[in-house]
């Protein structure tokens, strides 16, 4: 059930949701049980944030059904064949695809304590073994055999992530919407600067994607309800940022309604500065646009919003506040495939204009298609306008956007 034939570093669990438990006769005498369970929950979550694995603490099933069992002991312990050696040197060990034992003669401490041996760091290391990772003598790796006192904010680095993904694959999944949230801020000198952050939303949780680090923010995903106030807590269809010389408005769409977001106060307007009350019906704010929609984006080049629904796309002229002439049109017409047959055709998940890449991406399932931009045209004039470049996998462009078990969602 749990093993795949192979060599050290190549064996892995064959299922993606793993259960764990701190066993009753293995509680530490130094920390409260809650502290121990809290640290282990965090340790498992850290691996879940960078792999397709999810971990669930199971306190009820028979012990032999638990995938990973953790416990503390000293000397000869928990029926284990390998004795602990007392205070110093060996502080824990792990068995393949199974148990983790901690030497209770060591001085384990919870995060942010400063002294002692960080139980979190040791737990993350031993869980790495259980998942099939060997020791690595690389500075910065969590899988180094010797304990390195470090500040409590350690994280799994790029190569540790690749190592676990080599065993279990990357993180794949559909997104509800993807967008760059743009806001103006004042520097300490009073200058106005424009900043943006990239967000991926999936059902009722979201990730902030740090483009410069090629990963999500440490500790994400977070619940939409926690991070975005006043918008629907799950299943947002689209985010549109209308940004012209006179207008700077951000909208969230879901179902037949839409909300305007107040960037300054980081919450949805109930009444915006123009006196409009929200949420509003899409048919009121954008006459001629059907609802619900699959996704939408605002194109600053022609100051039109492109609403996608099924296999059709509706161009909406923001200035004239009406559908553009000739709308709706087939997505395959307005965004023709460059490689024959390589096209999402209908039911897009997200249309995302990335300021990082200065490009528009159409996402569907686990794939994306980049839309030909001006730079592509300069390089190759024969490319069709708004043509779709061949599909690629989302997780090859945006890394480590991984689910965690719903029980660990903040």
């Amino acid at each position: 059930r749990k093993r795949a034939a192979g060599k050290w570093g190549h064996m892995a669990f064959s299922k993606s949701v793993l259960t764990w438990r701190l066993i009753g006769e293995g509680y530490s005498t130094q920390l409260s049980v809650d502290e121990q369970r809290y640290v282990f929950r965090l340790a498992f979550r850290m691996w879940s944030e960078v792999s397709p694995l999810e971990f669930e603490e199971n306190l009820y099933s028979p012990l032999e059904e638990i995938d990973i069992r953790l416990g503390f002991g000293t000397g000869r312990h928990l029926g284990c064949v390998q004795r602990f050696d007392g205070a110093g040197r060996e502080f824990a060990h792990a068995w393949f695809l199974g148990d983790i034992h901690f030497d209770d003669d060591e001085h384990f401490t919870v995060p942010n304590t400063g002294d002692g041996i960080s139980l979190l760091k040791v737990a993350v290391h031993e869980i790495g073994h259980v998942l099939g990772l060997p020791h690595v003598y690389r500075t910065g790796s969590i899988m180094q055999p010797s304990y390195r006192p470090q500040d409590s904010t350690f994280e799994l680095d790029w190569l540790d992530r690749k190592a676990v993904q080599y065993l279990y694959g990357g993180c794949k999944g559909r997104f509800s919407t993807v967008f760059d949230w743009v806001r103006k801020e004042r520097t300490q000198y009073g200058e106005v600067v424009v900043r943006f952050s990239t967000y991926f939303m999936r059902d009722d949780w979201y990730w902030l994607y740090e483009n410069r680090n090629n990963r999500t923010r440490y500790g994400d995903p977070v619940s939409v309800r926690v991070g975005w106030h006043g918008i629907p807590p799950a299943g947002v269809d689209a985010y549109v940022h209308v940004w012209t010389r006179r207008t700077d408005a951000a909208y969230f769409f879901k179902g037949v309604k839409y909300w305007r977001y107040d960037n300054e106060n980081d919450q949805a307007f109930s009444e915006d500065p123009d006196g409009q009350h929200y949420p509003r019906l899409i048919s009121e704010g954008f006459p001629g646009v059907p609802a619900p929609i699959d996704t939408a984006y605002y194109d600053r080049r022609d100051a039109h919003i492109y609403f996608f629904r099924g296999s059709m796309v509706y161009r909406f002229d923001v200035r004239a506040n009406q559908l553009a002439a000739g709308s709706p049109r087939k997505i395959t017409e307005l965004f023709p495939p460059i490689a024959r047959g390589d096209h999402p055709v209908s039911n897009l998940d997200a249309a995302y204009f990335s300021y990082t890449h200065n490009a528009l991406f159409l996402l569907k399932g686990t794939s994306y298609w980049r839309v030909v931009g001006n730079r592509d045209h300069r390089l190759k004039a024969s490319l069709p306008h708004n043509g779709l470049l061949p599909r690629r996998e989302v997780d090859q462009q945006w890394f480590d956007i991984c689910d965690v078990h719903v029980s660990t969602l903040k």
Partner: protein
Amino acid sequence: KIFHSRDHSDVEIAPSHQAELITDRDTAEQFLLKYGFLKPVNSEKAQSSSTDMPTDAAISLEDTVAFVQEGPSSSRSGTPENSSEISDFSEALREFQRLSGLPVTGLLDDATRTSMNKPRCGVPDKEEKLIETLESSLIEKRHLAAPVRKIR
């Protein structure tokens, strides 16, 4: 604990619970053997030495206890008997030093002893082949041995 004994006896770790430090060749050999830098001598005979980590829950305690009793051959813990052992030992030491980022001297110098005495994980550093030999030997054993009762 909310209250400690007045003489702090329950807080200070009794000497018997202190890990044995690496101080000489013997203890260093045990360290290198345990973490896979040294292969047990006569590996066929000692194929299932105590340093092998069982690979999954399906291995019963009885199997492992039997293995422990066999343990590494005692010849490893006495004075070196021939030059090949000395070269094995210094070669293993050299590899440990190299991996640990220490000056590669092949000698049990202070820096090496300090590194060996650091708190560390009990999983061997090098066990790829061990696992394979272990698995194959165990599987053979399973077919030959009486049915195994699962004891945890």
